[in-house]
């Protein structure tokens, strides 16, 4: 096996995972709208036609509920479908199937039927997509026993966890943030699987535990860089798996830092951070020196205009400010650092400077 690492984007990483595994396992089928499009679901499905026999590439009509149910039916009878939704919102049409059938068929057959199904939900952000194309509804899925929910951030994790998701005999919801698709990393080209358990420490630090969901890890990493300039070292944890939820690493980290911040992709209220805080509270509250901090998307629909999305999404700026406040850091110091941050930032509504639309 070649061990040399190769620079790979998140999108390429999952593309590799899917194609390599599907070449080995003839029960893997693909279901999506525009499966073999020139763009192939933001490039994540490219080269499918070249590698996988046509009868396993199921172009899906604009019938989300039906198609998802059909995927479940296929999974029950021996297939391993990978269903891709270009936007998480489209899956709202399929929730009855996901919650009643995907999540409960194993239970309701005494384990005689299995639902090895991967459901990819892509979260949109930026370029003015607005209220119906940029929601982060991961808690809806995380609430449901019978489902697994993962949200990898980095290409390496994405590849490894995606492979586990495909091999899992349960329905696995994969939360993919559109802006993660662009992230690059040096990863091993061979297929390796990463178990669907637990969070991962992305950056070590002693002063603050910052637990992030998906793309929010990137915001935290940026914040960390600037906070280091003023001597604050945060520990960043990538939650990665929302169900089953295992928080040992978080508890350990808090034990060390005595400070906790959660950074949600979606709305704060009844969000991922709520569950994290509740679990910490039930067990470890006494360790904290200060009340924990929960941030997430502003409690309103996402506006389209780049004017109004300022402060709509949790940002590195917000992370710095809140941590500064909690640790009683001199405001002037914080301001200086924020100035620097601002200077180096790309526009608010794109994942990187080379992004030019149109969606």
């Amino acid at each position, binding site marked *: 096996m070649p061990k040399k690492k190769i620079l790979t984007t998140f999108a390429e990483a999952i593309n590799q995972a899917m194609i390599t595994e599907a070449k080995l396992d003839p029960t893997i*089928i693909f279901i999506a709208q525009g499966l073999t499009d020139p763009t192939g679901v933001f490039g994540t499905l490219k080269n499918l036609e070249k590698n996988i026999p046509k009868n396993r590439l199921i172009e899906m009509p604009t019938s989300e509920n039906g198609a998802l149910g*059909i995927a*479940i039916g*296929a999974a029950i009878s021996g297939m391993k479908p990978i269903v891709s939704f270009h936007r998480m919102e489209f899956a709202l049409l399929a929730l009855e199937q996901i919650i009643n059938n995907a999540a409960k068929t194993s239970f309701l057959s005494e384990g005689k039927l299995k639902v090895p199904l991967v459901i990819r939900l892509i979260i949109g952000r930026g370029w003015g997509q607005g209220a119906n194309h940029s929601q982060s509804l991961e808690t809806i899925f995380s609430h449901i026993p019978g489902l697994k929910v993962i949200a990898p951030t980095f290409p390496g994790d994405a590849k490894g966890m995606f492979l586990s998701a495909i091999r899992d005999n349960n329905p696995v919801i994969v939360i993919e943030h559109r802006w993660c698709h662009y992230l690059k990393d040096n990863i091993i080209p061979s297929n390796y699987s990463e178990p669907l358990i637990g969070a991962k420490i992305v950056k070590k630090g002693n002063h603050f535990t910052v637990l992030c969901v998906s793309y929010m890890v990137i915001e935290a990493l940026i914040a960390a860089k600037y906070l280091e300039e003023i001597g604050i070292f945060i520990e960043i944890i990538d939650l990665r798996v929302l169900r089953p939820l295992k928080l040992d690493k978080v508890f350990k980290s808090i034990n060390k830092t005595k400070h906790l911040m959660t950074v949600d992709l979606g709305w704060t209220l009844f969000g991922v951070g709520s569950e994290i805080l509740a679990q910490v509270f039930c067990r470890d509250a006494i360790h904290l020196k200060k009340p924990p901090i929960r941030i997430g998307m502003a409690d309103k629909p996402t506006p389209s205009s780049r004017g109004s999305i300022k402060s709509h999404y949790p940002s590195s700026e917000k992370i710095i400010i809140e941590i500064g406040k909690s640790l009683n850091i001199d405001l002037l110091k914080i301001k200086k650092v924020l100035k620097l941050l601002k200077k180096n930032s790309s526009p608010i509504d794109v994942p990187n400077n080379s992004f030019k639309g149109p969606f």
Partner: protein
Amino acid sequence: MEKNISMNNLKKLFFSMYRIRLVEEEIAKRYSEQEMRCPVHLSIGQESTAVGVSYCLKKSDKVYSSHRSHAHYLAKNGNLKSMISEIYGKSTGCIGGRGGSMHLSDLSVNFMASIPIIGSSIPLAVGNALSEKIKKKKNISVSFFGDAAIEEGILHECMNFASIKNLKVLFVCENNQYSIFTHLNERQPKKRNIEKIASAHSIASKTIDASDVTQIVNGTQEALKYIKKNSAPFFLVLDTYRWKEHCGPMNDDHLNYRDKSENDKWIKKKCAIKSLDNILIKKSKYWPSEKIKIEKQIKKEIIIAFNFALKSKLPSSKDSWRHVYA
């Protein structure tokens, strides 16, 4: 119509329908004992649909059903003890008491799943057919649903999908004209024939009066032939009638939501069991005595099954933690 069905097979059809009838009547009779503690949607009056269709199926063909699943289960050779135990919530039930009457499932006879959310099991059947196609198997996937499912978008999505992907699905709409208390005319266009729904999705279809089980057999056999020949779905509309209340063991005629004459017509003149009985009487002078034997046999089986269920243990709450995940 019965001409191309042998005497022996006519008797089998009778047996199967009559067995369902007597099982359901026993459930109705015993329901007030408060030991079957789950909603039950009885199939009395609708036995011919399940029996006529399943008669034509192979064991390897897969069946999916809805809230009203007893007849479908039994007609597909589901185990009576397992069904009654399931309704009694016992660990010997077909899924260990986890689901009750509305969730019957038994893989040993390819009775895959019953889902009580209207329309919800239809895509499972279509997905099954997709899987069979990829695996190059010849099995048929059968989806049973009531007339109310026509109103659910998911049926249309599934029909479109089955049609364009050339899937071997037999859609079976049991049209008993009612969704709970509401007549078809309040829910769907009055003069529109349900077959039009099928043709809107380029699916071949046929409507059959379910009071004659032999017609259902012939219609289903034609449908299966069509499906196999064309690698395409088929849509059967079976006009039938539910005798009892929508959910539960009682009659509810006093509520007057159904026309008395309509009721009378179906119960007195269009009972598929009675009709076949009449044919058999005409065909064989031995039938009356045979029927008595059959009845005895069935009743004995029923008593054994109920006793089995009654004696079986309730599952433990610990058991219900198993299989949440595979």
